[in-house]
């Protein structure tokens, strides 16, 4: 895990389910083949209704229609981020688009687990909803060691919740590396 992450914020509302993160019709693409996996970056967050895309004003696609990479490093959500299906394609899509971090007030269990075990975006929790205090396009800086999030656009600072036990898996890279380091499976 990098200690300092900087980039732009992309803000969405509550209960962003996995169909909004990556609509089911796109799940047919391989997550392995380079010419197909980039489609997940193209369609990441494309299921969010247009007026909710990039708050507070909306109508801002996460990834521009002709691109595969997003300009946004941070996804800022509200409560129950990632609810719905178990598709690991959801955190994969955010990562494939170039996002590094999600900050939400709370997460659905399977999405949270997938981000950690697959080594995708880092899922930080805020103590309260901050998605109405940050605007899409704000420049953010996160110190992952202390969970210190700074909004350079507003000057506001937020102390995020500690990652807890799961930091060990994030630091290992993914659950396989963690399992190897702890003797749970044989070294590769």
């Amino acid at each position, binding site marked *: 895990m990098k200690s300092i992450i900087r980039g732009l914020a992309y803000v969405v509302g509550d*209960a962003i*389910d996995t*169909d*909004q993160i990556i*609509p*089911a*019709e796109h*799940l*047919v*693409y*391989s*997550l*392995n083949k380079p010419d*197909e996996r980039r489609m997940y970056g193209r369609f990441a967050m494309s*299921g*969010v*209704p247009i007026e909710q895309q990039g708050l507070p004003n909306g109508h801002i696609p996460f990834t521009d229609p002709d691109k595969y990479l997003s300009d946004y490093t941070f996804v800022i959500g509200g*409560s*129950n981020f990632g*609810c*719905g*299906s*178990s*598709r*690991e*394609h959801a*955190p994969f899509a955010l990562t494939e688009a170039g996002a590094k971090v999600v900050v939400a007030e*709370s*997460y*659905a*269990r*399977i999405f949270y*687990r*997938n981000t950690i*075990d*697959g080594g995708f975006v880092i899922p930080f929790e805020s103590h309260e909803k901050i998605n109405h205090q940050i605007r899409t396009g704000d420049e953010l800086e996160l110190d992952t060691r202390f969970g210190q999030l700074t909004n350079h656009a507003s000057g506001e600072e937020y102390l995020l919740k500690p990652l807890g*036990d799961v930091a060990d898996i994030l630091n290992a890279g*993914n*659950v*396989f590396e963690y*399992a190897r380091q702890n003797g*749970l*499976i044989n070294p*590769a």
Partner: protein
Amino acid sequence: MTITEKIIARHCDRDRVVPGESVWVEVDILMTHDVCGPPTIDIFKREFGEDAKVWDAEKLVILPDHYIFTQNHHANRNVRLLRAFAEEHHLPHYYDVGSPRYKGVCHMALAEEGFNRPGSLLIGTDSHTCTSGAFGMFSTGVGNTDAALIMGTGKIWLRVPETMRFIFEGVLPPYLMAKDLILAVIGDIGCDGATYRAMEFDGESVYSLSMQERMTLTNMAIEAGGKNGIIAPDEITTEYVRARTDHDFVCLYGDETARYRSEYRYDVSTLEPVVAKPHRPDNRASVVEVEGTRLDRAYIGSCTGGKFEDFEAAAQIIKGQEVVIDTYIVPATTEISESLQANTIDGTTLWDVFENAGCKMGQASCGACLGGPSDTFGRMQGDEVVISTTNRNFPGRMGSKQASVYLASPLTVAASALSGVITDPREVLV
């Protein structure tokens, strides 16, 4: 300990586990399908090697069900990848598309094929894997990475969940179904009301339900964020299981002294038919409150509302009449589809009841429950308003994100299909 804690303890070879602790458990069955199977296999090969063997071919069940009847070549390729993997690993429990073994929706197929067994621990690459908990077992959904780790080792880490208990008492009136009960619960506690927790269903009304109806309760635990839904086994459970498998199983029960995080009590005789309004499963309203809402479409299908008894309930209302809006009938499995053709109501097969009423008849699969490729049977393509027996109504869930989805019981959906507006089943049930 609760039943959930006992099953987890048994699978990590411990006398006792406590909510909040993380443990590595042995998995009895791993289930995957055509959407998450191919990426799981990719990760399995990446981590364990191209020639690696699955940990136990007897314990891996592969049920293609999501994108089956489509021309989408990527979707068709995914089924071919599963077929090749099953051949390479000599998997006895692969249910191939286009073969007589093809089943359809994985959660129903697991029950029909005898993979749901009391006391066992089942993990699947699908959020509705919690359905199997109706059989007094622990079951939950995971992503591809966790599934790949299980494929290689048979193990997964689990955080032991606290348990929320939902007790239903009283006699269920004929106009209510399990779907109304679970929509009431989700409306009360919200889409994240059970996050990280077990949802245990108990009480005389629950034990009066068939296995199919019990599965509707546990199926939608995930819509409240639950890790697993569970119902302790009884004679109805063991009779169903013994008819489907010779495999051993152990019925486990919670202790009198078990600790629950919270307890909710419902008198089912006072409940009403309900819907979840767009665009959240917890956006509950009584049918009375939304009665008369104009509809474009009705849909009966999926792991939640595409079981034999769901169609039996709908057929009671639809028999001898004609639907006035596009009404899609999608049996969850081939076994259910065959039952519709084998069972009659007033001398007419259930299949014919629907067909004669003008319904559009689909093939066993997940169908339009989750949208899917653009040529999926019954998929929303525009700003349709639909009433559906499925499980989720977030924007875009059934295809188009301009569509509006009302979730309801098969009785309410059937009554509404006849009138073209949301209709209380009490108005048409005789």
